[in-house]
């Protein structure tokens, strides 16, 4: 479980996040949504400690994350996996070496065990047999999936995904969403996903947080979205006129509400 309270972050004089407080439960896919520039990436980076907030507290279970000792931080981080918005694969290493890197660094596994683990993870993201390829030889979606494989190779307790399906077709997006959801349940991970993909929200949104102008303006699950009358949420979810019409039709036919 991750609990944050009173998070405030500004760059210079521009506040990006103002007074964010919430909780992320394990075994659940927690989604952070909001339009481009709303501060999703900043919030995620705050949560993993890549940037520090101006004010506020972050707790990983009982651990005070912002006042943790360096050594404990590294131990905690071995339990954290992260998928970056741009994948951040090491481009001079092969796919296999990328996924194996955390194993090489932190485990005493034999070569055979490592290679078995790498193959399991690759299989988990449906990319069997691309071990010897370099990241530059992969499509964007494949890079994302390799990024996921690398993030889960150490069986993390916390998984952070920044836009796991931006730039992917709806079908592949769905596969990745399902994948993240399954892994989350299998390992009882606390998973936090940044997204502005409405399909993801409606498929795996067990706890959805809408960021708007630096604040949490709505929180709930995917079923509550339809019945909510939060204007900002609706503007965001049903952004296109097409979806707008679809929703109106649904409501006039007595769907929800």
């Amino acid at each position, binding site marked *: 479980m991750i609990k944050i309270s009173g998070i405030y972050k500004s760059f210079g004089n521009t506040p990006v996040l103002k007074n964010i407080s919430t909780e992320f439960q394990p075994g659940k896919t927690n989604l952070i949504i909001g339009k481009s520039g709303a501060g999703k990436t900043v919030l995620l980076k705050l949560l993993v400690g890549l940037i520090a907030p101006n004010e506020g507290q972050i707790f990983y279970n009982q651990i005070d994350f912002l006042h943790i000792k360096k050594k404990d931080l590294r131990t905690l981080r071995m339990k954290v996996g992260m998928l*970056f918005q741009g994948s*951040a694969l090491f481009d001079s290493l092969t796919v296999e070496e990328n996924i194996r890197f955390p194993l090489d*660094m*932190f485990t005493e596994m034999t070569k055979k065990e490592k290679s078995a683990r790498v193959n399991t993870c690759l299989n988990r993201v449906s990319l069997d047999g691309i071990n010897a390829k370099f990241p530059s030889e992969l499509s964007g979606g494949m890079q994302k999936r390799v990024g996921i494989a690398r993030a889960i190779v150490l069986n993390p307790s916390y998984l952070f995904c920044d836009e796991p399906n931006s730039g992917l077709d709806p079908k592949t997006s769905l596969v990745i969403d399902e994948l993240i959801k399954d892994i989350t349940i299998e390992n009882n991970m606390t998973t936090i996903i940044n997204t502005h993909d409405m399909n993801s929200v409606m498929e795996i949104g067990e706890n959805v947080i809408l960021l708007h102008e630096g604040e949490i303006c709505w929180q709930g699950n995917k079923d509550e979205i339809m019945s909510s009358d939060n204007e900002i949420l609706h503007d965001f979810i049903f952004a296109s006129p097409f979806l707008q019409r679809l929703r109106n039709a649904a409501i006039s036919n007595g769907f929800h509400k």
Partner: protein
Amino acid sequence: MVITKLLNHLGKYLILMGNAFSKPEKTSMYYKEVIRQMHDIGVGSLIIVFIISLFIGAVTAIQFAYQLDGTLVPDYYIGYVVRDMTIIELAPTITCLVLAGKVGSNMASEIGGMRQKEHIDAMEIMGVNTAAYLIMPKVLAAVVIIPILVAIAAFVSIGGGFIASVPTGLLSGQEFVMGLRSFFMPYNVFMMFVKSLVFAFLLTSISCYQGYNVKGGSIELGKASTNAVVISDIMILLADYLIAVVLI
């Protein structure tokens, strides 16, 4: 203003070095990286070090011969001067100035690129001490390999002096060798190694610092790489002066 900025950089540099020299997560990974760096620095720099020191030895011999012309100083002094100039000053300093340009700028842009492509962030989140993993092996490899390169440079440079002066008839081979064997002080060799060790540390650590703290885009990356060379060069010359004052 400038002073506070300098002190700020100095503080950040010292903290980074403190982090860089902490216990490795896994020795075997660091060891592999040290070996790779040794190979890159050593083998990668052999040719340029060879060429430069050959010419420096040659020029020293010819110019000293020119200055000796018409004086009462015996010719074999050419060998002696080439040897001492090379060992005390030219081999360590010129080699390291050149390596700052080659190895230093390379390290700054390698680490800087990793910073910009979020590779460093990705490693941090895995729990890797990136300051240690990215910097320590480079510095360790450099302080082992660069003194060896400097020693090679010294030999080649003396060879260059020989080639430039003996076949051209400035003095005989025996005289040159006699010069090489006159007034030899092993202490000078010690000084050469002290210098090359210090310079190697300076040029790698400064370059890594520049790369590690890159922000922004490709222009900043280029600047960091240039700064790495310029600042390393200045620090090498400053250290050269200080070592000369302290050790002589």
